């Protein structure tokens, strides 16, 4: 194992092979952004709106379920179009994985990924710690706030919607919000925003608990304990049960907080991981349960 994460994978699979999902993901993130920007910049109106609600080609409504839930809690009943949009989005993420939103659509992911990359390059370690459960408390807080104030209070400070809306409708001071997130991730807390605080991520994580499309450690017997998947994963706690078969767990990563980013697939030089469905779990159970590997101490 050489110094940089993914070096072994690059050696084994070539650079493209070791960055396949990362590139696809960036293409998705930038592609979605480009679709939204085509209208205001080039006058080609394929998609109107932003990530809270968008209208594609004049017939496809897509509504963010988190913001609609808050709006409902302020005791407002939206038009049918918003409900149709939310149904489509819920079905979509229930199929592909709740937090696919986070890793494939959300623009803040590129910012926090950049911070994580720089953190690695600069060798910044440690920082403040809060539990990954904090996001659920913040999620509850946003919902209580909506009900108590009768306004979408979280939207006043939500960096995700402020950033995305800013990119499309004019940034204003939104750059400061996003710079703050970047610096927070870089110096204060690793995986701080996306992995510990963001209530949107928490919401999609809960949705992802039932989702169909999942990564799995299908060839976990080939694992050579290089730990690179743990190092690259933004939610490393989701990998262990599937990879190590803790408590007889199958190889499918079932945790809702897995973002389906596919970086574990990329960085593994042994091709342990692959995308599949949650139903792949039983079949694979027949294959030998993981041997008594000692999980290396995580820092």
């Amino acid at each position, binding site marked *: 194992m050489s110094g940089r994460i993914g070096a072994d994978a690059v050696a084994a699979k070539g650079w493209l092979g070791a960055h396949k999902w990362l590139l696809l993901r960036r293409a998705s993130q930038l592609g979605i952004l480009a679709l939204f920007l085509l*209208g205001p910049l080039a006058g080609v*109106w394929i998609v*109107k*709106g*932003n990530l*809270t*609600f*968008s*209208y594609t080609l004049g017939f496809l*409504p897509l*509504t*963010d379920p988190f*913001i*609609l839930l808050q*709006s409902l809690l*302020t*005791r*407002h*009943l*939206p*038009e049918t*179009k*918003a409900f149709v*949009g939310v149904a489509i989005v819920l079905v979509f993420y229930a199929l592909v994985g709740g937090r696919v939103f986070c890793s494939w659509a959300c623009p803040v992911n590129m910012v926090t990924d950049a911070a994580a990359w720089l953190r690695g390059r600069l060798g910044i370690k440690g920082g403040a710690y809060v*539990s990954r*459960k*904090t996001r659920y*408390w*913040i999620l*509850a*807080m946003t919902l*209580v*706030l*909506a009900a*108590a*104030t*009768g*306004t*979408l*209070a*979280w*939207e*006043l*400070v939500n960096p995700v*919607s*402020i950033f995305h*809306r*800013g990119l*499309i*409708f*004019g*940034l*204003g*001071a*939104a750059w*400061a*919000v996003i710079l703050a997130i970047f610096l927070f991730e870089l110096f204060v807390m690793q995986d701080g925003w996306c992995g510990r605080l963001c209530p949107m991520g928490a919401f999609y994580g809960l949705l992802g608990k039932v989702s169909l499309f999942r990564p799995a450690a299908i060839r976990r017997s080939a694992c050579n304990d290089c730990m690179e998947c743990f190092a690259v994963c933004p939610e490393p706690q989701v990998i262990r049960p599937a990879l190590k078969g803790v408590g007889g767990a199958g190889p499918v990563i079932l945790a809702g907080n897995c973002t389906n980013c596919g970086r574990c697939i990329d960085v593994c030089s042994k091709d342990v991981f692959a995308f599949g469905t949650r139903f792949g779990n039983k079949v694979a159970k027949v294959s030998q349960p993981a041997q008594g590997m000692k999980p290396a101490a995580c820092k």
Partner: protein
Amino acid sequence: MEADKPRKTSAAAQARRQFLLDSARMACGVGLLGIGIGLYAKQAKALPPLAVRPPGALAEKDFLGACIRCGLCVRDCPYDILSLATPEEPVSTGTPYFVARQLPCEMCEDIPCVKACPTGALDHSLTDINKAKMGLAVLVDQENCLNFLGLRCDICYRVCPVIDKAITLEQQLNARTGKHALFIPVVHSDACTGCGKCEKACPLEAAAIKVYPTELAKGEPGKHYRFGWVEKDKAGGSLVAPDVEHRYNLPEGQRYESGRGLNPDAGSEAAPGTQPAVPRALQGGKL
């Protein structure tokens, strides 16, 4: 065996204790954040007077729960007058508004902004743009309004899309010249849509007529107020009986006419020769 039991319970108690502590920590920490955001949200409920919501917008307190800040109204406005508030602006972040003095609402008949709204924050029951209530125009500055100065500017009256209903010109005596009329622009709240064309068109350096949120612009009489003439109309006759005509003690040679006040009695029209004296200097003749 016996010694094990208390240790087990104490381990469970320890875990329970830890759980409660963690929960309290979370609840307090996140609660603090929540209180901060909640108070900010309370403040952000106030819409600054210069920001006008698009047609059909619900009352501000409902609007802030209904609008999901998607910007479709902005996109479907053919005149690009709407914008979404950025975080540093005094309008609730991400919500649509326009500033009448910069670009007023053009009052499209098909109201595309309302149709575009997916949540009904812009009320879909608004189908006639002339019934929109975006705000209320107020002639704020009566000292600088050109019409109040006796000039025939009339621009606000002319540009009003609901001309002669939302703004009328009311004649008054021009006390400065004593012989001319003032044409006072008067806004009627039942017809004004708050589009802001008057504010935009006002030729002054700063507009004398401005669109304000209706609740800011409008007074409200006491609920117990009853106006005699209104009640009389409603009842179809005087409510105080008997309704006798008032007898005045008028100056000699004067008579009173309803609506016109005191007038010289027709019979006692002053003869030409008895006009009040005018200083000779002004009579045109030589001194």
